[in-house]
């Protein structure tokens, strides 16, 4: 079957505005999702689930969040780590305070809490732009981490300053956090949760709000002159973005590592997520997934490849090489394709559309 859109005439605006206007795309995405839902749980090893798929999904949520703020609304943020920490610690406080409330609800509440924090730290964006704003978001990063490290209240006075995920079930016996939670459970929950969140993000960016964000990103003065209130647009981007990032931080702490200290969300985490959206593609939901996959897989590849060809490299050397390769790749991507993997994917599809009869 050829990959074509010819013959698929759109008879109405609704189908023209669909997420995947081309039928083959729709089928493809559905197949991938079904495969991930129905097949992977049975064939995947615990290593694949715990060390690759779960962090991939967690990071995807964070990358979507940051992409909303930076890729769609044009506000560069270096505070991602701080907002992830908010999500993690809010979840911990909420679920230990109200153990009977469903963990899904707790996640969402933590997300809303983080959104409020995001709005507070987004206020400078009304006055300052660009580099000035990027630096100002570092205030969020450092202040929040400091707050969670300094105040033992946030960890329920844990002497090591660590929060540990208590066992919580989504329903009945389906535990998704704590020791009872199996990797498959966590994976399945995260898969559906991430898919739902991605859908929400996609819906927002293709609606009025998303267009307001992009208008602010592309030319804020013109945006204001056609009636967009910069305050509403920017702060809503901060709120939605922080909501996603907060949830991702909660998922990180409760499902990926299961126990965590505030330092796990240091400024390097912010850079990591920023790299995901640069490599994946600014202003692209698909790119957020691609970037997350890339950044999760790269270190694994780097630490396994030398061993596979028989080289034994010391661990710290590998860490340094990883830094170098990361940095070089960032520069490489910016030079070769500033629009990231998502754009490459699109170009590939264009080619495929012409194949096998280029004209």
């Amino acid at each position, binding site marked *: 079957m050829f990959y074509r859109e010819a013959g698929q005439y759109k008879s*109405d*605006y*609704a189908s023209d*505005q669909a997420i995947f206007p081309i039928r083959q795309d729709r089928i493809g995405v559905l197949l991938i999702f079904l495969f991930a839902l129905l097949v992977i749980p049975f064939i995947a090893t615990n290593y694949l689930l715990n060390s690759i798929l779960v962090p991939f999904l967690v990071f995807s949520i964070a990358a979507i969040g940051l992409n909303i703020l930076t890729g769609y609304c044009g506000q560069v943020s270096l505070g991602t780590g701080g907002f992830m920490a908010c999500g993690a610690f809010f979840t911990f406080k909420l679920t230990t305070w109200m153990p009977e409330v469903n963990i899904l609800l707790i996640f969402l509440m933590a997300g809303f809490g983080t959104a409020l924090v995001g709005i507070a730290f987004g206020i400078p964006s009304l006055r300052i732009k660009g580099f000035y704003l990027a630096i100002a978001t570092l205030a969020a990063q450092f202040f929040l981490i400091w707050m969670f490290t300094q105040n033992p209240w946030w960890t329920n006075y844990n002497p090591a300053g660590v929060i540990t995920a208590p066992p919580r079930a989504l329903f009945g016996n389906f535990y998704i956090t704590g020791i009872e939670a199996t990797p498959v459970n966590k994976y399945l929950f995260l898969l559906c949760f991430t898919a739902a969140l991605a859908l*929400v993000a996609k*819906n*927002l960016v*293709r*609606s*009025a*709000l998303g*267009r*307001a964000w*992009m*208008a602010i*990103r*592309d*030319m804020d*003065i*013109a*945006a*204001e*002159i*056609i*009636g*967009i*209130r*910069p305050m509403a647009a920017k702060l*809503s981007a901060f709120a*939605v973005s922080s909501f996603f990032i907060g949830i991702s931080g909660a998922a990180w702490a409760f499902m990926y590592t299961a126990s965590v200290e505030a330092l796990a969300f240091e400024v390097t985490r912010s850079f990591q997520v920023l790299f995901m959206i640069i490599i994946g593609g600014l*202003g692209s939901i698909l790119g957020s997934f691609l970037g997350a996959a890339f950044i999760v897989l790269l270190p694994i590849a780097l630490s396994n490849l030398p061993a596979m060809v028989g080289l034994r490299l010391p661990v710290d050397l590998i860490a340094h090489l990883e830094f170098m390769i990361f940095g070089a790749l960032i520069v490489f991507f910016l030079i070769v394709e500033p629009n990231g993997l998502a754009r490459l994917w699109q170009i590939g599809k264009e080619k495929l559309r012409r194949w096998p009869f280029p004209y």
Partner: protein
Amino acid sequence: MSAVATAAAPNQNQQEDGGVTQNTARVFDEVLLEVKDISLAFGGVKALTNISFDIRKGEIRAIIGPNGAGKTSMLNVINGFYHPQDGTITYKGQVRRKMRPHNAAKQGIARTFQNVALFKGMSTLDNIMTGRLLKMRTNMLLQAIYWGPNQREEIRHREYCEQIIDFLEIQAIRKTPVGRLPYGLQKRVELARALAMEPELLLLDEPMAGMNVEEKEDMCRFVLDVNEEFGTTIALIEHDMGVVMDISDRVVVLDYGRKLADGPPDEVRRDEEVIRAYLGVGH
């Protein structure tokens, strides 16, 4: 420049002009916007000094003057982007307070820019859809769900935008990112975006600058059509005196931030001071 030739040599051109224009007969009474004694300065630079004029409902009002005369600044004052140090603006009978541009938009003032100010990362259609934002009502939650009320609203506004797209004959570039369009089309998309706001007062800053004759003719036709079909009041800045004479009902002339003349095109063209100002800049 041909504009200057026209202004500088009014006597030769006078006869030919006779019946071309549709404007001389039109009479407008209702004042839509009145600026009074507006003064605006940037540090030491006086961009506008004591400017007063009005724009009447339904007319096409031209603002002309040499470069740096303060024309763009005047539009910026009208849509709330610059705040004059002195003077008052009365819009629809109400004296306006200091306001932000988005308030002006809400009151029905739309605008295009001298240097195209499109949203470069978005398609033509999305650019035009941003013009509808003020009219869209669904909240964030409904937008997150998309299907249902939000989708119905999206489609409703899409239909309106499609009408504008047809009107301005830009169907073929609907899905093209605007950054890839040639300059002339970008200007047209910008007009489309402004029209999508269903403005009462449309401000056009040099809508035909940098266009070839054909594109200019198209643009003139669109401006006249907009004015006629939608009854939109239009204030436009234009350098091409021929165009100004053809399509405008009244002309206000600025020079070094001062008002030189104000009146119907024929009258303005004969004004001694206007002729001198144009000759003075040495075109």
